[in-house]
């Protein structure tokens, strides 16, 4: 077929993992703050995974001879009222705090997107009922509702996680529903129907992949806020229970010693601050990458 050559269009060769890495690097280099965010998150992840390797002491080991000591070479962040090493407790605390925050986001994204897509596809009365219920949840202050739920279910890390997750669900329901409503009018969704695709196939292959990018952005941006909410619940005693080390709980206990032992509150507080900031920076960066209109530079 000699006719083919003038008609053939040039398509760039499929990109391997190397060029993908390069692309990622290029995007990151454009905004150094994203890089800071990535660095913080990577650090936190290393802390979570390799806590026993990094922590110099057993976080639960009491050393009554060394109570409330100021930061020193032996105890970088000082010790608490029963002589436990604060540095080690913060390292181990990352497990409870960050894993909880991550699980909360995972649950609320999963449940929220499922409900949102369903609501958008089904439409009609079911859609109205679901959306009004979400409005009710959204009308209540998030922290207050989470507190009430955590208190009602009994104070524990898992219960507080469920409570915060429930509070965050409406945001994802609305996002996913909006995406579904706009995407299902796209020509390729209509085309898929003319080729005999079932609603489930359309949901899996046409709606979800195209709805994902704003949801990912929302989730990463949310992560920072949720680290704060989870810490707040532990701070008021509804989250992780002693002796589990958790950042919010550490700040809470440290409050009693805030005047004389400044380090007790400060270091766990800094851990929360830095982690939340890292999540936000990363979220902003991902948003800029996925939305070319915001790129600007």
């Amino acid at each position, binding site marked *: *077929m000699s*006719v*083919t*050559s003038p*008609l*053939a*269009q040039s*398509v*760039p*060769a*499929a990109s391997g993992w190397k060029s993908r890495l390069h692309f990622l690097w290029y995007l990151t280099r454009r905004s150094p703050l994203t890089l800071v965010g990535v660095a913080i998150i990577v650090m936190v992840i290393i802390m979570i995974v390799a806590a026993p390797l990094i922590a110099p002491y057993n976080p639960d080991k009491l050393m009554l001879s060394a109570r409330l000591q100021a930061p020193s070479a032996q105890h970088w962040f000082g010790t608490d009222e029963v002589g436990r090493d604060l540095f080690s407790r913060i390292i181990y605390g990352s497990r409870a705090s960050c894993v909880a925050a991550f699980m909360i986001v995972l649950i609320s994204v999963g449940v929220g997107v499922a409900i949102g897509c369903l609501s958008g596809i089904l439409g009609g009365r079911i859609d109205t009922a679901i959306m009004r219920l979400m409005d009710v949840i959204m009308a209540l202050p998030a922290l207050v509702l989470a507190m009430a739920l955590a208190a009602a279910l009994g104070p524990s890390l898992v219960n507080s996680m469920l409570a915060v997750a429930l509070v965050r669900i409406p945001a994802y329901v609305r996002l996913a529903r909006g995406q579904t409503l706009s995407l299902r009018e*796209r*020509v*390729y969704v*209509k*085309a*898929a*129907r*003319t*080729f*005999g*695709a*079932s609603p489930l*196939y359309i949901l899996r*292959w*046409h709606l979800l*992949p*195209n709805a994902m990018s704003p949801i990912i952005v929302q989730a990463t941006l949310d992560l920072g806020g949720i680290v704060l909410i989870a810490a707040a619940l532990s701070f008021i005693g509804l989250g992780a229970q002693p002796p589990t080390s958790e950042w919010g709980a550490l700040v809470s206990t440290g409050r009693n010693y805030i005047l004389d032992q400044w380090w007790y509150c400060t270091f766990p507080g800094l851990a929360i601050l830095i982690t939340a900031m890292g999540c936000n920076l990363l979220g902003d960066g991902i948003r800029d990458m996925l939305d070319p209109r915001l790129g600007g530079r």
Partner: protein
Amino acid sequence: MASASEPRKPDGQKPAALTIDGLSLEFPTYAGAIKALDDVTIEIGNSEIVGLVGESGCGKSVTTMAATRLLPEGRYRVTSGSIRLFGRDPFAMDETELQDVRGKLVSTIFQEPMNALNPTIRIGKQLVGVIQRHEAVSREEAERTARGILRDMLIAEPERIMRAYPFELSGGMRQRVLIAMAFSCNPGLIIADEPTTALDVTVQAVILRLILDRAKRTGTSVVFISHNIAVVSQLCDRLYVMYAGRIVEAGPTRAVLESPQHPYTQALLRCLPERVEPKAELEAIPGTVPNLLDPPQGCFYRPRCPEANEQCFAKPPSMAPAPDHLVACWRRETIQPSMISEAQQ
């Protein structure tokens, strides 16, 4: 009915690809019912190429969407008439049967190739997905079929195209992929809904030729929907001219073009820019398409028709034989071909 105007009947046993008989359809709205289709009768035989011509909003797409039941369920009402798709009634099918029919028996080629492919999935996967939806074949076999059809669409390197994402392809290329997709399960009927409207004029002819050649080779019937009577006339065996939800003229392409009887068809032909001298004023049909919420009394074309009289007010005309074809106009005997040439001067 004049025998010449009868659609060509196939061998007798095989039912026609699509038979729409006196279909009237309306969309209920707060302001009242929009009568989108009124007594539409269309027959598309097997291996027949048929054109459906008319202005935007005249009901061309609604007609074909009704045939595959792709109109939003519950938002429309069929008030009379029937549809037979290869002898089967789409309104008697359940959702699963409809899904089996769509893509396997009837496929659609859309107007906007830029948006008709999912931007997040590679071309190959989308093509293979359609094939595997309807044929019980292995992935490798489906991929081989896909490559074959792409090559038939004059795509030089099907392997590379299949690995590409839609944004990497030009509009003409995407439309070829979509045509390949439409033909991938060897459907009996293809609905080509303005397949070249969004494309560059230089590729239009190539694309239309691809559809036509493949259809001729596989014995597939094709409905070309278009507002461009010139494009359609070169491709189709027969033409249906629609106006405001009604068929106004129907018959073999040659008969309709050479002796158009309906004033609307005549006006459409006069409006073709190709027929106008350079720098001359382009012709336009005076007036606008009627509001289907509140259609004019009698013949729908009457308000724009220079020939209208009292008879046209009284009652909408029904299809009646004209030389070699059918036309719906009360004044068909009084409008002489000589008047067309006069109007053209």
